[in-house]
């Protein structure tokens, strides 16, 4: 029982982190109808910027305070992400207004390659460290109840809290502000949105910047867990079933989807995996999502898919 609980909680924590990456997808999809394949690359790019800045800035300024260094690095990385957003609008999206989803998806693939190459060129391709002071040691709960207690990573716990906060803020933003409404309008129909004067350019820069911010937060959390390295970009793949389970257009869905998937994955791997040779979590998640979709084709919280003549 203790182990079950432990696995369950472990799953929740992993799920929260998947959700954080998934959130970036949802934001961009919801606000522009673009399925942003580059989200993973953005996480990596942001994390690389953060890691290298926090290394360079103290050297450059002769600073000795880790907190200050991290803060400056964070600001720097955020500026970089805003610049990225601006360039993406300028050079890519701005020129592809009103095109079909697949075309935009493909364009984000181009962005992915570019960011991968560019990031490694300027930031290097070694493993780098982000140390924002998240605690690494495990924490044991309910030791009186179960032998050995239930293990929780403090780091994960902090991460989960940050993720939850982000989600709440963003969901409120989408549901209750005029800009949020405008963003949803853009996702539905670029041209019509333009025709009533919604400035796509500005909107896209904003949204991609916010997505860049989410990527940065995800990058910092994952990076401080795993080190910053090229593989961070494959996190995007982990986030894919999450977004779809939660529904492509739902901010809370990203997190709830993440939690469900995290738990499903871990439980299946730990309890079913050994029976069939292990490694099943990678496809189990997808099969789980598939089953859910058969009942709800738009994901758990997605907007109903409209088909009407």
């Amino acid at each position, binding site marked *: 029982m203790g182990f079950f609980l432990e696995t369950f909680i472990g799953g929740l924590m992993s799920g929260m982190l998947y959700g954080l990456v998934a959130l970036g997808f949802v934001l961009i999809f919801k606000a522009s109808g673009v*399925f942003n394949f580059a989200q993973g690359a953005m996480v990596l790019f942001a994390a690389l910027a953060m890691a290298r800045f926090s290394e360079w800035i103290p050297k450059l300024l002769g600073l000795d305070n880790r907190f200050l260094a991290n803060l400056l690095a964070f600001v720097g990385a955020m500026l970089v992400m805003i610049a990225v957003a601006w360039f993406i609008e300028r*050079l*890519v999206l701005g*020129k*592809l207004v009103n*095109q*079909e*989803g*697949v*075309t935009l*998806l*493909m*364009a984000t*693939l*181009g*962005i*992915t*390659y*570019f*960011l*991968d*190459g*560019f990031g*490694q*060129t300027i930031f290097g*391709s070694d493993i780098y460290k982000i140390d924002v002071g998240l605690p690494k040691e495990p924490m044991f709960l309910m030791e009186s109840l179960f032998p050995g207690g239930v293990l929780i990573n403090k780091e994960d716990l902090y991460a989960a809290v940050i993720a939850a906060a982000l989600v709440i803020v963003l969901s409120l933003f989408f549901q209750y502000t005029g800009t949020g409404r405008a963003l949803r309008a853009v996702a539905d129909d670029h041209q019509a949105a333009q025709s009533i004067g919604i400035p796509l350019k500005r909107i896209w820069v904003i949204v991609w910047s916010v997505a860049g911010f989410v990527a940065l937060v995800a990058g910092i959390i994952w990076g401080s867990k795993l080190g910053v390295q090229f593989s961070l970009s494959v996190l995007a*793949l982990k986030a*894919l*079933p999450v977004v*779809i389970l939660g529904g*492509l257009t739902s901010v809370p869905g990203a997190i709830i989807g993440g939690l469900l998937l995290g738990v499903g994955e871990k439980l299946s791997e730990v309890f079913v995996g050994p029976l*069939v*040779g*292990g*490694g*099943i979590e*990678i*496809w189990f998640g*997808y*099969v789980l*999502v*598939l089953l859910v*979709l*058969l009942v709800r*084709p*738009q*994901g758990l919280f997605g907007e109903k*898919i409209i*088909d*009407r*003549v």
Partner: protein
Amino acid sequence: MLYRENGQFKTSYRADQQIFPILQDRIVIAGLLVLAFVAVPLLADEYLLRAILIPFLILALAALGLNVLVGYCGQISLGTGAFMAVGAYAAYNLQVRIDGTPLLVSLLFGGLCATVAGMLFGIPSLRIKGLYLAVATLAAQFFFDWAFLRIKWFTNYAASGSVAVADLNVFGIPVVSPVQKYLFCLVVVVVCALLVKNLVRGHIGREWMAMRDMDVAAAVIGIRPIYAKLSAFAVSSFVVGVAGVMWGFVYLGSWEPSAFSIDRSFQLLFMIIIGGLGSVMGSFFGAAFIVVLPIALDRLLPVAGAAVGLAVDTATVSHVVLMIYGSLIVFFLVVEPHGLARLWSIGKDKLRLWPFPH
């Protein structure tokens, strides 16, 4: 003025419905075929054949198969790699278990097994659409990846999970040297392309496209979604399966499941998007773009660097290749969002009007 269809009158519907109704096109295509079948084997060196043309042909074939599903029938699939793998491992098992199975039989068997797998994972498409459907096919991708990695029987209990095939031959003609392999691939690709082209311009092809463009309307004029979608899954996975067999048998010779990983699925999807969804020609353009371009860049860059007196190291070259490649994708999409095939046809339209601008 060369490219005009004036004066070419069609006297029958058959003539009008040819694959290339314009005379000049037919000449160009005939020329291309001669080039591919005669000139290339005579002139190309081993590297060009082995490292570029053979993988180009096979991936173009897989892209063609995927295009049937995504481009023609509008069902997004990210399980292409898996269906290739099903083809390859099925054919491998047939070879291992029945000694002396002819290559063509293995090829067909691989294709058929992929067809079955494809149809199975196509069933959710009756309910799930668009990007959401991608997950169903991703499930196939990861499931088969796992199965071929984990279920020892599929790999004939090879320790590392890597399998290899012995020397190949078709009707006693060996398929070993690069030229032989190339010609074999070329024949298979041309035949498949022809069959697929026939399908997509026949009524089944119209059913697929109708499904893609407006499924409710398609249903109203009597198209059964089950039939249209599953037949697209079937044809697509068959071609993809055959491509999988060729990838394993002819190109790699020895492979492990990661040869058919999710990256391959994405790669193929990207090929058809950049090449042109719903275009047989587009599959070839896309494959060329995605297979050949990075290699070409990779080779050109150091030369270009040397020309301006810069010694660029391998890592920088790779990174810059990525950047240029990414930029080129965006560039071509901005020029023509519907892919290279559309760019091509616009080019032809312009040529038709030439020397007048419109």
